[in-house]
Every structure is written in structure tokens, then in C-alpha cells.
């Protein structure tokens, strides 16, 4: 999907010491190929590490100058060994390649030989509301450093990898008027890479739902705002505590399945399950959930991906009682997605649907934030096309107009008697432009035409908006 030509990156030691020939790899076609490459590289490293300690390696020719250069070479070598010893491997010329469903920058740690890996992303935007009088509280034009994110990964050895994402939202968490942002651990997951087919993951993990939740780096989607379906129906960025398996079970067939802490129904509202996410922050763990995903990307059709995912679990957390009875609030979320990328053309579509039980008993405790939809759905389709090759033949830059249609409804069905007039029931038509001077940097402009069919809940801007922003990954 992203820079398929790139090699699997191995960190500074390998790129500096290992000669190019052995690693002039063709693009790995499947996870299988990738594993073979990793294994081969691993062997090479071991071999090299053994030879490095041998002093005879240093040639002993006499002229003065040669000794000088030799001394310099040994210096460099020992510096590199020192770096290796301190396990610090910050790739100076990293290649970005999405791994195990993670974003390209988030995948960097899988590429290092050993030790620390640093990466990150950020996005900032200016939003202008076309109808500022729609709501004088929310419809204020704004300029926001929405996210600045640091990935800090640590590869303990060739099969145990720790990956962390620390996120700073809205630039500050100061006091008083500065108290707008938040800092959170977006994920902190430990991977045990055992076998191509079966690997173990545990920690604070991203739910494997939809396109955005696991891969939300700004260069990977169009438009400044993430699609609403993947904000309100699939509540990105959604992470929970848990453990599970992932891998490539058949060529081209990837899966992830986890057991995780479930949602907390008391956070549900008429704009969806978003505030029910627990995010590993003193999470209630009375109820657990299962989440699983299957993706198929056949090698015969490069650029094609089809998949589906689900989240199933009680979210009452033993807190929803009524007339002495406990209600489980069984929550089901299903999602299907399809994507095709071919010669600058990018097509994407996604559909999601949820069903929540016992909402009649849950709603009163939500107060006027409720009711929660017994059923909700969201769907969108988008197309983009990189026109740069037509404008400027040999450019490696990227310029893609895109168009997206979105339809979602957080209150498709509510329990009998409850008010379904306040919620997010929208058609969104969005058009814009994504420009990448280099693959790591994107400048985005888009216009969203939003058509509401219900009263919009407090705190959510209404009416059309124009957004201009940039994003980067590193």
C-alpha cells in the first residue's frame, strides 16, 4: 500500500556495515517473503557480529596515510559498535512500510535490528465554518495543532517487540484557558513474533476495526478530519487492554483476534459509543469483549484488499441495574471494508453497523446525553486519483483530488418511547485535495457539505466547513 518498493528497514548497523549486494531485495510480496528476508538478515547480522571481534580483519599495509584512514575506519566501526551496544538504533534514512496493520511510522520498530526506535506523526488544521451563526459555541473558526504524536518502540530481540504511541492533542494541557488538550498513551503493546501464522500481542491495543483506527497517520487518509463513520460509529482512536493473536493464516489472509476490556455503557450518548471507550485508564473490567478481523489481499490483484471486523461484548460493567436486575448491555459492532489502489487510482469503501441491547434501561442514566441508538450505522465511499504524473512527468510528488460520500446515523433505531430527535443523522459530501511533496508530508484542503436530519448534540459543530491543514510522519 505504501512505498511497496521499499526494503524492510534494518536500522543503522545493517545499513552501514552490511554491503549492499546481499540486501538488494526485491519488494516482499507477502508476509511469507518478508519473514524469509528477516531470517536471512538475522543470520547475516550474527555472522558479522562474530567476525567483527576478530582483529585480523584490519589490514596491515604500511604507508602513513593508509594507517590514518584505517584508524578512522576503526573509529567509525567502534562508534557503531558502541551504538549497537547501547541499543540505540534511530534509522537515519528510514523506509516506511505498514506492518501488521499498523501505520507506516508506527511500524518502524519492527524494522530495527534491536533496541530503540523513534517515530511519530503530527497534524494541524485550520477550520472555517461557513455558517458561523449555526451555533455560536461550537462554530468558531479555529486553528489547531490537533495532534503531535511520538512513537517509541523497543525491540528486545528478534521476536519480542514493544511498541508505544504517546499522543499530545490540541497542543497544551495547561491550566485555566490552556486546559484544552490531553496527553494519552494511544497504545502500548508487546508483540511476540513466533511464527508467520501465530503471533501474540498484549497490552493497550488498538481495536482492529475499519481503516482508520489502527492506521490513522495523516498521510494514509484523505481529508483533514477522519471520516465521521470512523469517529462516531467506529470510535477511532479506540484502544482497550487485552491480549490476542495475529498473523497471516494463509497467503494473503491476515487476521487479528483479541480478548479485551469492553466498553463502559455509562459513557454512551446520542452521538454514539465514543465516550464508552475505556482506553486503559483505570478501565472497568467487569465485562470483557472479543474483537476480531480478517483481511484478504490476493497477490494476483496487487493493491486490492477486502476485509471485515467485529467487536462483541457486554458493556454494562455490572453498573446498569434497574428494579434490582442487572443489565448487560450486550454491544455488537460489525464492519466491512474494501480498498483498491491501482496506478494512482485509490478507491475505498466501508460500512459499519451496531446493535446495543437493554438500551431502555441504560438511557435514563445517560440523562440528556442519551438516548443511545439501539441500532446505528455508517457507510462511506471515496475515490482519489494522483494527477501528478500527468502534470509533471518525472516527479515523485503526489497530488490527488478526492471525493467522499458519507451517510451515518447514530440513532437509526432507539428504544420505544425515547426521543430520537437529537443525534447525528447525516449525509456528508466532501471534496478536496491531498498534496505530498514527499511521501512523509501531506498538505490537505477539503470542503465538507454536511446535511443534518436531526438536532445536532451539543459540542458538535454544524453546517458546512472548509479545512486546510498539514500532516507529517517520521
Amino acid at each position, binding site marked *: 500500500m505504501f512505498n511497496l518498493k521499499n526494503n524492510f528497514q534494518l536500522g543503522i548497523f545493517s545499513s552501514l556495515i552490511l554491503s549492499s549486494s546481499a540486501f538488494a531485495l526485491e519488494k516482499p510480496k507477502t508476509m511469507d517473503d518478508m519473514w524469509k528476508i528477516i531470517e536471512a538478515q538475522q543470520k547475516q547480522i550474527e555472522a558479522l557480529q562474530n567476525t567483527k571481534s576478530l582483529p585480523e580483519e584490519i589490514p596491515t599495509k604500511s604507508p602513513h596515510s593508509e594507517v590514518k584512514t584505517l584508524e578512522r575506519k576503526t573509529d567509525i566501526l567502534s562508534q557503531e559498535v558502541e551504538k549497537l551496544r547501547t541499543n540505540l538504533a534511530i534509522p537515519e534514512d528510514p523506509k516506511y512500510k505498514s506492518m501488521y496493520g499498523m501505520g507506516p511510522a508506527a511500524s518502524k520498530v519492527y524494522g530495527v535490528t534491536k533496541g530503540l526506535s523513534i517515530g511519530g506523526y503530527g497534524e494541524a488544521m485550520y477550520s472555517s465554518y461557513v455558517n458561523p451563526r449555526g*451555533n*455560536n*459555541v*461550537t462554530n468558531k473558526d479555529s486553528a489547531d495543532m490537533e495532534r503531535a504524536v511520538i512513537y517509541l518502540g523497543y525491540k528486545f530481540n528478534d521476536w519480542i517487540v514493544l511498541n508505544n504511541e504517546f499522543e499530545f492533542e490540541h497542543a497544551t494541557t495547561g491550566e485555566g484557558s490552556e486546559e484544552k488538550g490531553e496527553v494519552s498513551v494511544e497504545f502500548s503493546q508487546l508483540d511476540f513474533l513466533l511464527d508467520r501464522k501465530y503471533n501474540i500481542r498484549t497490552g493497550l491495543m488498538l481495536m482492529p476495526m475499519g481503516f482508520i483506527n489502527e492506521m490513522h497517520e495523516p498521510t494514509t487518509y484523505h481529508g483533514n478530519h477522519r471520516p465521521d463513520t470512523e469517529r462516531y460509529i467506529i470510535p477511532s482512536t479506540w484502544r482497550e487492554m487485552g491480549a490476542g493473536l495475529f498473523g497471516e493464516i494463509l497467503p494473503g489472509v491476515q487476521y487479528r483476534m483479541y480478548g479485551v476490556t469492553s466498553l463502559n455503557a455509562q459513557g454512551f450518548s446520542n452521538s454514539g459509543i465514543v465516550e464508552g471507550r475505556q482506553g486503559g485508564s483505570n478501565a472497568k473490567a467487569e465485562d470483557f469483549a472479543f474483537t476480531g478481523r480478517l483481511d484478504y489481499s490476493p497477490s494476483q490483484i496487487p493493491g486490492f484488499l477486502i476485509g471485515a471486523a467485529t467487536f462483541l461484548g457486554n458493556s454494562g460493567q455490572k453498573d446498569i*441495574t*434497574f*428494579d*434490582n436486575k442487572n443489565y448487560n448491555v450486550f454491544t455488537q459492532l460489525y464492519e466491512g471494508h474494501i480498498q483498491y489502489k491501482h496506478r494512482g487510482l485509490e478507491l475505498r469503501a466501508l460500512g459499519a453497523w451496531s446493535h446495543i441491547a437493554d438500551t*431502555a434501561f441504560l*438511557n*435514563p*442514566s*445517560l*440523562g*440528556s*446525553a*442519551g*438516548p443511545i441508538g439501539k441500532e446505528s450505522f455508517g457507510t462511506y465511499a471515496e475515490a482519489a486519483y494522483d494527477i501528478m504524473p500527468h502534470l509533471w512527468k518525472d516527479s515523485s510528488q503526489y497530488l490527488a483530488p478526492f471525493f467522499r460520500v458519507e451517510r451515518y446515523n447514530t440513532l437509526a433505531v432507539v*428504544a*420505544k*418511547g*425515547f*426521543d430520537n*430527535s*437529537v443525534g447525528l443523522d447525516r449525509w456528508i459530501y466532501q471534496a478536496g485535495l491531498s498534496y505530498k511533496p514527499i511521501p512523509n508530508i501531506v498538505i490537505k484542503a477539503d470542503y465538507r457539505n454536511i446535511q443534518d436530519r436531526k*438536532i445536532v448534540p*451539543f*459540542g458538535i459543530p454544524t453546517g458546512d466547513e472548509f479545512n486546510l491543514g498539514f500532516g507529517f510522519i517520521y
Partner: protein
Amino acid sequence: MRRILLLSIFVSFNGLADSVLPNSKNLNVKAQLGQKLFFDTNLSEPAGQACSSCHNPDFAFTDSDKSQPTSKGVNPEFHGNRNAPTAMYMAHSPVFYFDRAEGIYKGGQFFDGRAATLEDQAKGPFLNPIEMGNPNAETVVEKVKVASYAEEFNAIYGSGALNDSTQAYNYIANAIAEFERSPVFNRFSSKYDFYLFGKATFTAQERRGLAVFEGKGNCVACHSNRPIKDTPPLFTDFSYDNIGVPKNAESLFYSMPSKFNPAGAKFVDLGLGGHLNIFKDDGKFKVPTLRNIALTSPYTHNGYFKELRNVVEFYNTRNIKRHCANPLTNETESLAQKCWAIPEVTQNVNFNELGNLKLSSRDIDDLVAFLETLTDGYGQNSPWYLKNEN
């Protein structure tokens, strides 16, 4: 169900409440005793004034006499400095405390929090020279000893419960507080409550009003309208604020004898700051609940506002209308002159959360329509009780 019969006997003895109070069916014995004390007009000096004189159940336990901003005392010539607030839902006010996280005071009883609990509060009015006029606790206990319900004290608090007057006064306060903690004061049966349970439908206007209440109006910043854990919405967070209410020249307190009001016309009510003697809390008053607001006029601590709509209008334009030339301009004249009189206490006025809300006239009508859904008695039983009975 036998109890109804019994209760109506209890209630009719004082003649004030001739019908059974809503939600008074299954009161515990302490609360039943508290009810008798609450309505007993013999407990003042001279007799004639009960708690219920200023806290009338037909008006959500506020004063039924709407003609004056503050209530008549035991001597009808006398008037206190503050408007009698509803005694309903006050059982949910936490014990007065300093919230370290937020750096502000919260909870307690009275507009200035000077009583920490309902028990502390109940001991106040009996001895207040304006309100019920007893010189000391013994006088009150002596009156209770000769009341028809005196025997019940022995049954509930042990024989000889009224012998020691200090202890007896505590029991009196406890019984009253127990009554105030009962469902009679905590009805949670407004249209809004039924709406939250899907058992009432809001009109389009009420729905819009709710949206203004939470949105543009920002009323929820202080009058929180959502349940917290198992507690239904209370429409107050029990914090203190100075919303900038002007001085109320119509209050008869200014002309009270100097024994009661040494400052005369210059009297300024400092609220929380006056009680704590802390400058930065001057002018702050406890956020009142908005439940039953349609019944509880006049409004705010000094009864400056007679009309609910005008309170909302004040929130909307306090910062943007000019100051009236005369700081003693009353509510109706201010509206006519398109100005607002300056706040009674100009320090610590909240400019961040209110004063310029940009509400349209329709928004205000909608908001008032929503506030009118907060009156108890829309349905017989609170939808919350079914939920909480366990």
C-alpha cells in the same frame, strides 16, 4: 396503605397541609416526626410561624407569599435579608467543603454555606430573631415537650429523650433533617424525569430549550442536568458564584431596625465571602437547584427577579447592555430602559461563563419552556424510584 389514614390524622392536626403530601406514604418514623415539627406553628415565639410558613409544600417548599422579595418574620413587620430558597433536594448537598482539585468551596446549606449539614441548618431558624424568634434552644424544647407528638421522641430516641435540652435540640434537628431527606423533598417526578425514561415526549420547543440549556446557554456549567452515578439530575453542582445580581431596593430589609440591620440602606450581602471573610469569595452565592423553578419566584438570593424569563434575559445581556444610571433600578424599569443595574457586589463577577450568551428571543422562550418542564408532579411516582429501590 393503612398509613395513609394515619398520616392524614398527623397532617391535619396543624391545619396547614390539609391534603396528604405527595410521596409521604412510606415515611420512616423519624421523618414522620420531622414532618410534624416542620409544620408546627407553635414552635415560634410568639406562636404562629413554622418552617412551612416560609417553605410551603404547594410552592416547592418556598414562600407562598410572592408579594415581597423576602419572607415575613414571626413579627410580620420584620423581613430577612434573603429570599427563602426551596428546601427541596437540599439533602443532596454535600457537607460544606473545600474542593482542592477545583480550588473552590462546595456544598453546605444556606446561600452562603454557613450550615454544613441539614441538621446544622435546622437549628438555625428556631433561634433566628426575625424568623422564629426563640431566645434559646430550651425554649424550643419546652414547646416540643407539650406538643401532641412529644411521646414519639421517647419511642424513637429513647425514653427521656427530651430531658436534656441540648440533646433534645439535636433530636429535633435530626427528625427535621430526616424529613428533608425523605421522598417528600426529593420527588424527581418532573416531565424532564419522565422524558429521560422515555415516558414523556418533549414538544419541539422544550427540546430546543434543552439544547440551549446545554449549549449556547451554558447553564449546565453550574446547573448540571445529568445524573451522577445513582443520583438523578439535581440542576446544581452546589458550587458558589457571583452572577452579578443587582441590589434589590424593594427589599424591606433595608428599612429594618438597626438592631437587625446596622448598615441600613448601605447593607451589602457578601454571601460566601461574608461568611468566610475571604475577599475572593465576596458576592458568591450557592447555585440553587432549578427543579420546580416555575413555582419558586421571586428569584435569586435577594428576590430581585420576579419573572423567570427576566433571569434568563439577564444572563443573556448582562455584559452587553449599559449600566443603568441609577444602581437601584428595579427589574421592570431596567428592561424598559434597556440597561442593567450594576451588580450588588462588583468583585468576582463571573464574566467567563455568562453575561453575553447571544441568545435570540426565541432561544429564551425555548429555554423558559424547558425550565417549566422541571416542575414535580408530572406523574405520580418518580421513574427513578423504581430504579433505585433495592
